[in-house]
C-alpha cells in the first residue's frame, strides 16, 4: 500500500551511473561495461564493453554507444 521504497527510473539510473552494468538488447545480445552516460531515449554509453552472446564473450569494445530503442533492460552487473 505505501510506496516508501519507490524507486523511479531516473533515480535508478543516477544510482548506477559509473558502475558495471549489463545492457540486454531485444535481439538477445548482452553488453557488459561501465555505464558512462544515459539519456531519456535510453541511449547508453558504456566503456570497456564486452559483447556476449549465449553467455560467451564475442567481442571487446573500448567505448560503445548503444541506441536506446534496442535496449530491453539495464541491470547492475
Amino acid at each position, binding site marked *: 500500500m505505501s*510506496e516508501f521504497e*519507490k524507486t*523511479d*527510473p531516473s*533515480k*535508478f539510473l543516477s544510482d548506477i551511473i559509473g558502475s558495471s552494468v549489463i545492457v540486454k538488447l531485444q535481439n538477445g545480445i548482452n553488453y557488459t561495461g561501465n555505464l558512462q552516460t544515459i539519456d531519456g531515449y535510453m541511449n547508453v554509453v558504456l566503456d570497456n564493453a564486452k559483447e556476449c552472446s549465449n553467455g560467451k564473450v564475442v567481442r571487446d569494445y573500448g567505448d560503445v554507444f548503444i541506441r*536506446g530503442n534496442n535496449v*530491453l533492460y539495464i541491470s*547492475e552487473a
Partner: protein
Amino acid sequence: MSEEIVEQPILPLEIIDKSVGNKVKVLMTSDKEFYGKLIGFDDYVNMVLEDVVEIDNEGTKSDPVKKMLLNGGHVAMIIPDVVA
C-alpha cells in the same frame, strides 16, 4: 432519493501505481516475460523491477536479476497481483 452514481474512469497508470511494491508479470511484444517486484515506473512505463526472473518463449526461467530498468517501449502487457 435518487443517487447519482458517477463512474470514474480507471486510468491505466493508476493500476500500475497500485502495483508498486507488489509482484507483477510483464509481457513483452516479443516472446519474453518478466516476473518481479515493481518498485517504480515513469510516464513511458519504463519500469524498475526487483528480483526479476526473465522467462523466454520455452518457459525457461533465468536466474533472478536483483534490480533492473525495463524499457517500456517493448512492453505489451502488465499483470498485477500475479503469482508466478
